[in-house]
């Protein structure tokens, strides 16, 4: 099964990158290890959003809500119950997927912007519940000092855990991207009416995509708790959802890997420029304007176009 999906040649750079990432924590300062881990978590979140936005063509404006549900489910199980920790790791993504299913059931009945408006409203509702339910979630204080299993509580431990989970998730996402379901989903993105007319139950496919995407968002939420050891409502505020949306656009939302690049750029910008000025979004804004003018397909989309042009005629290449 794997052989069909992964042609060795085109994955050599990916494997090389993975090996570098494996050894990096040994040589770089702790802060950078932490920063990389944050990038991984954000990358997974952006990738999960892109499954519905870039491949599914759905305006999932409030994706961070499910990120939050995953993180809060994890935090609450670890702090408020005496259940073994592994249950939290499993239950949190499932909780996200259930929230995704519930909201998705309403949203897929609408299309385009109407979908987006309803989605942002229902997502904000989840945020409001968590923000207001002080006795359970401590409201805007968030939950801090979450005790994690000792193996992954150190910076390095969490780094490796996150890296491994990220890689597993990416492999699964890639399998889905290239599966009949993934291809059908991309066809629905391009032309939902035509898909109906060839017998595809468009809403059901969209709902499945939402559930899968929110499941992965939940995993990202779990990983967030692993990095930070805390949760707070800001991580699921709608403004943050827009930020993830931008990561997808920035990296290239019609590609598979683009959103990861977008996430890396955004997180790095925030931490590096953000340490000089709190107006780092100003610079982000300028970058985005330039992007729209010069790289409408996103950074990764642009790189792929260049590679394709160079290797034209060799193999039938699609977005990787």
């Amino acid at each position: 099964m794997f052989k069909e999906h992964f042609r060795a040649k085109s994955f050599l750079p990916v494997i090389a990158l993975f090996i570098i990432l494996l050894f990096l924590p040994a040589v770089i300062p702790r802060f950078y290890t932490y920063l990389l881990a944050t990038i991984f978590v954000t990358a997974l979140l952006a990738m999960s959003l892109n499954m519905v936005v870039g491949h599914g063509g759905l305006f999932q404006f409030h994706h961070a809500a499910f990120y939050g549900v995953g993180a809060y489910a994890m935090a609450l199980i670890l702090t408020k119950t005496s259940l073994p920790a592994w249950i939290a790791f499993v239950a949190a993504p499932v909780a996200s997927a259930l929230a995704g299913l519930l909201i998705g059931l309403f949203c897929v009945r609408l299309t385009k912007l109407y979908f987006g408006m309803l989605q942002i409203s229902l997502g904000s509702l989840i945020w409001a519940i968590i923000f207001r339910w002080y006795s359970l979630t401590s409201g805007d204080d968030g939950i801090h000092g979450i005790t994690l299993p000792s193996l992954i509580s150190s910076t390095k431990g969490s780094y490796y855990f996150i890296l491994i989970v990220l890689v597993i998730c990416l492999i699964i996402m890639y399998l889905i991207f290239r599966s009949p379901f993934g291809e059908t989903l991309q066809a629905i993105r391009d032309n939902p009416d035509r898909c109906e007319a060839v017998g595809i139950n468009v809403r059901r496919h969209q709902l499945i995509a939402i559930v899968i995407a929110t499941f992965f968002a939940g995993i990202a939420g779990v990983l967030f708790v692993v990095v930070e050891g805390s949760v707070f409502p800001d991580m699921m505020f709608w403004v943050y959802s827009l930020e993830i949306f931008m990561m997808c656009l920035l990296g290239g939302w019609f590609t598979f890997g683009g959103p990861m690049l977008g996430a890396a750029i955004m997180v790095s910008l925030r931490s590096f420029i953000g340490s000089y000025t709190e107006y780092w979004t100003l610079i982000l804004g300028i970058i985005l304007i330039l992007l729209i003018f010069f790289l409408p397909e996103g950074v990764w989309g642009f790189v792929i176009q260049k590679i394709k042009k160079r290797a034209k005629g060799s193999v039938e290449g699609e977005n990787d």
Partner: protein
Amino acid sequence: MLQVEGLHKSFEGFKAVDGANLNVGKGELVAVIGPNGAGKTTLFNMITGQLKPDKGKIIFKNEDITKLSTYQICNRGIGRSFQITNIFHRLTVFRNVQVSVLSRKKKSTKLFHSARRIAVEETNSILESVGLLDKTSEIAGSLSYGDQRVLEAAIALGIDPDLLILDEPTAGMSPEETQATMELIKKLAATRGLTILFCEHDMDVVFNIAESIMVMHQGLTIIQGKPEEVKNCCEVRECYLGGSD
């Protein structure tokens, strides 16, 4: 195979279809003709479920499909192409057709198989039969207009329909392309045992290949019959064929 009885549809008071009747027998090549705005596309849209009729009945293979949704109707065996080219612009030609083949084979929800290996032969054989085999890896949006029209029909063939509905398959084509497309339709009907329902503006084409013709005028079915009958019907001459014949 398909019976349409007394179909009505109005849009905010405007009666687009106002009493349409149609009978398509198995293996027939049936044409719907009528001036612009006669309601042909509206009729097709109701048969395939894009629009819901206000009144009337649509029977397909002895089953009332009037209230079914588009994808359910398609799964009963009705494929269609659109008047305005309706393809997947960002996907390759191959994947355009593969999507509909996957849909018919009920494989479109498979999550962990590689799509590269599924339904390849079948997709290629459809592309071959319409003459697009040498363009499989091109992006559909970059095809010439004529090829896009053909791809449009190929997508409809992907679901292996019993009844194929073609909404002005030659819209915007040059006379040569029109001729070639019609030859293709005839060939497909013969080799695949398809029943075809189509509408068309070119009268020469229609009277040449159709076995049965239904004439619409202002949403109303005037007559359905063999080409000679239709040609001799004075009402038809009056409202439609008058000038051109």
